[in-house]
């Protein structure tokens, strides 16, 4: 009896490790494949058969994409919107969250209701577009960072973290004559580093990965393009897995395509958009797991 149970458990363990190893492979393989192709000589790639190692190593593909003006502009704009959007987003969320974490603040109930409601509805695509038009945000850089600056979900996460801080900290500062802003700035904010790192990651990734706002509001202005939008255009021009360079003619990336195949270009740009995330990811992992859990439990 006991023996059979031990066997059950061993079979379970064996299946479990197999299943999770499979998950690991299925998740990692595409990334490694993209990396390998991006580092492989373009004409050789067309022959096929590249898996996770480049056959003829080269950096030409990367060189080619940086000769393509729109991509450089896109890279700069994506970086700018990520930095500005994150600073504004984190600062405003932290500030609002602080006021909502104060049990004595009399505006607390009304304000938190107004904020939480925004999680459940949205005006929709067309009214949103008309609003941006009326505010003259279309064809400007600011349409990337201003509309989403105050985000209820982030505020809830920061607030639940602040709720866990002892109020005595604020009281002693108050006795020393500090006003509420000074308490926030000097006492509370430094203690919130973990949760601020979490939402900074959320906002930054959201900003870095957006393409739809560029498509909707700024597609006619190449100087406001973003990296993801440029990548999207190239992908849309070469869908269905075609490696046919002809599908590529007439697009703005034509020049770059002349020397390097679109397949290689796509993979190299994909890597350029993934790499910054890979760099910050390990440092922030422990924070975002914490933050996700907090936010999910509260909301």
């Amino acid at each position, binding site marked *: 009896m006991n023996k059979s149970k031990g066997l059950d458990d061993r079979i379970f363990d064996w299946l479990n490790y197999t299943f999770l190893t499979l998950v690991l492979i299925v998740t990692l393989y595409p990334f490694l494949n993209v990396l390998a192709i991006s580092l492989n000589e373009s004409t050789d790639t067309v022959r096929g058969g*590249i898996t996770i190692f480049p056959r003829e190593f080269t950096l030409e593909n990367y060189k080619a994409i940086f000769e393509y003006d729109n991509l450089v502009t896109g890279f700069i704009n994506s970086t700018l919107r990520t930095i500005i959007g994150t600073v504004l987003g984190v600062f405003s969320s932290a500030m609002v969250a602080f006021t909502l974490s104060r049990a004595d603040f009399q505006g607390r109930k009304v304000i938190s209701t107004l904020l939480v409601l925004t999680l459940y509805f949205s005006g929709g695509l067309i009214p949103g577009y008309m*609003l941006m*038009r009326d505010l003259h945000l279309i064809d400007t850089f600011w349409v990337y960072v201003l509309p989403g600056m105050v985000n209820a979900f982030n505020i809830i996460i920061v607030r639940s973290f602040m709720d866990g801080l002892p109020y005595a900290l604020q009281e002693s500062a108050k006795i020393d004559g500090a006003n509420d802003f000074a308490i926030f700035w000097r006492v509370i904010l430094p203690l919130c580093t973990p949760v601020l790192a979490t939402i900074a990651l959320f906002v930054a990734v959201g900003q870095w990965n957006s393409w739809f706002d560029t498509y909707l509001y700024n597609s006619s202005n190449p100087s406001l393009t973003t990296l993801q939008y440029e990548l999207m255009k190239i992908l849309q021009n070469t869908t269905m897995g075609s490696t046919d360079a002809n599908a590529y003619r007439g697009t703005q990336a034509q020049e770059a395509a002349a020397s390097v195949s679109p397949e290689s270009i796509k993979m190299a740009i994909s890597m350029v958009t993934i790499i910054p995330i890979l760099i910050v990811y390990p440092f922030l992992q422990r924070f975002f797991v914490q933050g996700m859990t907090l936010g999910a439990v509260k909301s």
Partner: protein
Amino acid sequence: MESIQKKAHTKSSQAIKKHRPFWRTMKQQKYLYLMSVPFVLWVFVFNYLPLWGWTMAFQNFRPGRTFLEQEWVGLEHFIQLFQDERFHLVLRNTLAMSIMGLIIGFAIPILFAVFLNEIRVQAFRRTVQTVSYLPHFVSWVVVAGIVTKMLSIDGGIVNDALVGIGLVNEPVQFMTKGEWFWVIVTLSDLWKEMGWNSIIFLAAMAGIDTQLYEAAKVDGASRLKQIWHITLPGIRPTILVVLILSIGHLITIGFEKQFLLGNPTVVDYSEVLDLYALNYGIGLGRFSYGTAIGIFNSLVSIILLFLANGIFKRYTNQSVM
């Protein structure tokens, strides 16, 4: 006379007394107000003001005219919408992909979390976790590119594998087959979000009393029995909350995946409500019609949320809203 004056006086002083604490506290809390009210106004402009735009659905909206100059048409756009055959097709696609996404995207992360929770080798467990969260941070643009590449007929791993094990004789053009589109979207979403969506379940499992497992072990319960009788009941509240919220978001599935993975050959399967609104509203400049589609979308999701919450309340006497 005097008494009346006195009365009036006390009355007004009472009124002042009643209001004074509010204004006085407000003055005391002026920094708190200064730190929150500007952002509330911000939210008002960007989140509440678009609701005003819903009036467009009841007009023949023309840009450039003032609100009073618009021509009001009542429910005409909605009637037109419900009569449009394209709308029925789009609604079918939206619901099909939402329901598939809800079932798969909800059940598999629970399973994944359960399996992960049973791993005793911490290094392996952490590796799987770290890797599985990664795709969540990659944009849909890149994921669409990856999916297209993996499914491509020349050198895509999926076709190579299928041909390799002899399931098909020649590579399948997945991206041009409409009937595959829903499956591709659902599985891409699963690939991207499975790890991320499991975080909350793993956190809930970490909160289960370990003594329960010890006791079960003493009683000789197998691992599967422990999962069935301890782990799953232990995370039941979390499962329910996540389920309700997912039902609320059922119809607002977004359009990014469909936009990026779709192509003209599969449009009958890939077009969803938001894309339909985008094509009509902004593509063709029919703002009113596009808004009507958006309103329909919002109303359905609110009704679903309340329905789900109502059922939840009835069975558990709790509410998530």
